[in-house]
């Protein structure tokens, strides 16, 4: 028993070391390597026809903003179709959409209100996909605010016949709303500027994030649409595409403002939902990825590590528990054990979850400096994230054990963030 526990603890340390190495490779690549070109430099006055889908549930506070932003985009109107989906809203969302539809021909809202139309993002997307006329589909959440060139930049990725999906970069807008949004802004920078871009540069697994991005409609319909059983429909789509030989392109310059949670409770629920969905996606996609003949060894390795990232915090917690048991059983020397535990904590805090060096490199690449002072406080975010993610992992386990269908829960909107002038 003692030997088994010791092997388990060492194995977890090895897993964490692997994650750290992976993050180091990504960081070095971004700091010292050449950025792989995206398709944004292509000037084409006949871009692909696109359908833009915006799922909405009780979004009256933000709906006009994204509608206006989409209408401001530099895209030929005859090639643009906007489908906002009112998914059982109980506020004024439907009225707002109806008003926009009356004013603009390219806006064709989809109202989902029937009892036979269950609520949830996956259901909403599936219905909208059936309505969409174009093969190139772009998705935005309602709290997003795309810049004038974002649609064109994202759509140009589909000139590449191997690209099944494309992902842009998300920039938090409401950073002035408090400490948490500022920390989440740091985390997002590391995740996109370094992590996603490095994976694109190295031709590894770029993750489609479900918003500020798009995919080929025909592909998703061919694969049976989005599964309501998976809360992380974006992660699931990423793996289904890669395991079939398609690729996800990352557009670092297609930056889009979003609203991040301003309260710890909202963030906890969001992270817990992501972890629940991501772990379900891991169970569903692990073997297809491993067996795929379209992926190289490194793509599989990166894919598995990406799939497993939301399983690491509970594993880490279990390793701490195992170590504690070893100490209580006097099976390990206390001093060495504490040192190893400390190292494990440090790896977890600074070696995972958009780790410190990735965030630091990202801020340098973005040309910021003062906000880097907040970097040591990422430690607090690590502890919080570990807690929320572990709860999400338990939820996912519960879903499997009880054979229950997870219920999609919308992240709370605040609509307090306004982009500062200039």
């Amino acid at each position, binding site marked *: 028993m003692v030997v088994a526990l*010791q*092997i388990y603890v*060492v194995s977890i*340390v*090895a897993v964490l*070391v*692997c994650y750290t*190495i992976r993050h180091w*490779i990504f960081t070095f690549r971004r700091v010292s390597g050449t950025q*792989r*070109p995206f398709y*944004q*430099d*292509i*000037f*084409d*006055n*006949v871009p692909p026809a696109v359908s833009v889908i915006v799922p909405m549930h009780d979004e009256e506070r933000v709906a006009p903003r994204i509608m206006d*932003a989409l209408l*401001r985009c530099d895209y030929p109107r005859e090639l643009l179709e906007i489908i906002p989906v009112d998914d059982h809203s109980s506020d004024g969302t439907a009225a707002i959409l109806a008003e926009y539809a009356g004013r603009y021909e390219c806006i064709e809202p989809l109202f989902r209100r029937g009892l036979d139309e269950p609520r949830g993002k996956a259901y909403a997307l599936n219905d909208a996909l059936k309505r969409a006329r174009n093969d190139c589909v772009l998705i935005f959440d309602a709290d997003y605010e795309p*810049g*004038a*060139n974002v649609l*064109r930049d994202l759509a140009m990725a589909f*000139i*590449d*016949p*191997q690209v099944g999906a494309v992902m842009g970069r998300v*920039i*938090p807008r*409401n*950073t*002035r709303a408090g*400490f948490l949004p500022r920390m989440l*802004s740091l985390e997002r*920078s590391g995740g996109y500027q370094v992590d996603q871009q490095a994976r694109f*540069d*190295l*031709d590894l697994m770029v993750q489609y994030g479900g918003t500020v991005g798009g995919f080929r409609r025909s592909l998703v319909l*061919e694969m049976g649409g989005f599964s309501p059983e998976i809360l992380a429909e974006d992660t699931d789509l990423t793996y289904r595409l890669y395991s079939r*030989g*398609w690729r996800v392109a990352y557009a670092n310059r297609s930056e*889009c*403002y979003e609203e991040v949670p301003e309260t710890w409770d909202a963030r906890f629920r969001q992270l817990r939902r992501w972890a629940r969905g991501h772990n379900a996606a891991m169970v569903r996609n692990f073997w297809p990825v491993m067996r795929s*003949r*379209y992926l190289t060894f*490194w793509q599989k390795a990166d894919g598995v590590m990406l799939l497993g990232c939301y399983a690491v915090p509970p594993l880490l917690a279990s390793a701490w528990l195992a170590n504690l048991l070893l100490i209580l059983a006097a*099976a*390990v020397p206390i001093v060495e054990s504490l040192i190893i535990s400390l190292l494990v904590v440090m790896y977890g805090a600074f070696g995972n979850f958009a780790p410190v060096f990735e965030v630091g490199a990202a801020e340098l690449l973005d040309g*910021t*400096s*003062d*906000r880097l*002072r*907040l970097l*040591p*406080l990422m430690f607090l975010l690590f502890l919080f994230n570990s807690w929320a993610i572990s709860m999400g992992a338990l939820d996912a386990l519960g879903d499997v054990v009880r054979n229950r269908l997870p219920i999609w829960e919308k992240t709370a909107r605040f609509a307090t*963030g306004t*982009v*500062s002038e200039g």
Partner: protein
Amino acid sequence: MNGLEGVLVLGAGVAALAAVPFVPSVIEMFRPRDAGELNVPQDYVKNPRFFAESFRKKIEPYVADVIDGPLPHVGQLQLRKPESITVDRRFALTPKTGLQGIAVSIGDATFAADTGAHDLWIKGDADIGDRFRVWSLAVDGELTLGERCRVTRWIDCATSAIVGDESTLGLSASAAEMLLLGNGVRFQRLYGQPIVVKWSSADRLTPEPTEALLDDHAFTDRDGLSFPHDALIENDVVCEGGLRIGRRMVVRGNLKAAGNVRVLSHALIEGNIVSRSNVEIAEECTVLGDIFAEGDVSLGRDVTVGAYAANKSVYSAGKIVLGRGVRVHGAVIAEHGGIVEGLSDSARVASPEPPAVALPPSQPRAVAPLRVRTLPLAAPPPAELPGVPPPAPIPESSAARHRLPGAALGLGAVLGAGLVLFRMWRRRR
């Protein structure tokens, strides 16, 4: 100091040291110096003539104010710093003379050989002699630029422009109408409707494919694909190796290859061409879509990209070589510079031609089942088409070599160290 006190002092010291990084964090948290969001330009849109339009917009109000007064006018304009500005009805420079600061000609301008200017806006036509030096040049009428001229930043013409041999066009050269380039012209970004390399002379041969090939699916293969001459492809081709398109072929879909893409003469590609390495298009081919290469691009004699009113781009993360008579409707972007090799028939497409395909008359011109992307097959696909030689080896660009050097070694070392640590731990027990 006894032992316990020593431990306490040591502990306090370590705690104080550990707290040091958090001090600026706490200060930044309560008295933020940078709490704003990252700046994302919300109104940015792509405009290949951005430099010139921005320049004109800045100068126009000043010119409008002085144009009705006595000319020439010499004054000062406040931009990022004060700049001297000269406005005149027309400029006519003699050899070895030049204009300082910003110069605006209300009418036509004539510059003899060996002249120069800094920032120049000519609202009429411009006839510029050889060896002209300029920082930036905007012309509202027609522009004729002599040989061996040198532009440091950009030139733009609101109608059509002719650029003489051996000129260097700086960061950007654009024209609202035709942009005609002489031999040996060096450039980085070009935009014209169309961009033409002089001179096209040969009669074009229209490809007439004899039989359809691969007409139902998109295909992918790791080792490269080589298609026979005179064939027709109806859909997308995705290839993990190199890709060769035979002579006089017609491709109705898009092409993507991780390796080099080589299109032999007189082919018609109706879709886009994407390569993670180099793209070579041989003489008299037509590409109706965009060309995007992470390596170099070469367009041979009389190659046409795009079509009237359908602007497309030729993008290279490396270098671009344009051959004689090349015509691009839209933009040409070479991150590491481009050159016109107008005296050459085939630009850089000089590697030996692969042998022609000789299929027996009775053998149908179909291919063995390759890996169909939407319906993965159980059996591994053949590496190449039957009877067709593999693509000639072309050196891969550095952009295509995305590997993780040393990562395996590092991973092994870390796992090995972990094992040693574990064994030492066991031995201690």
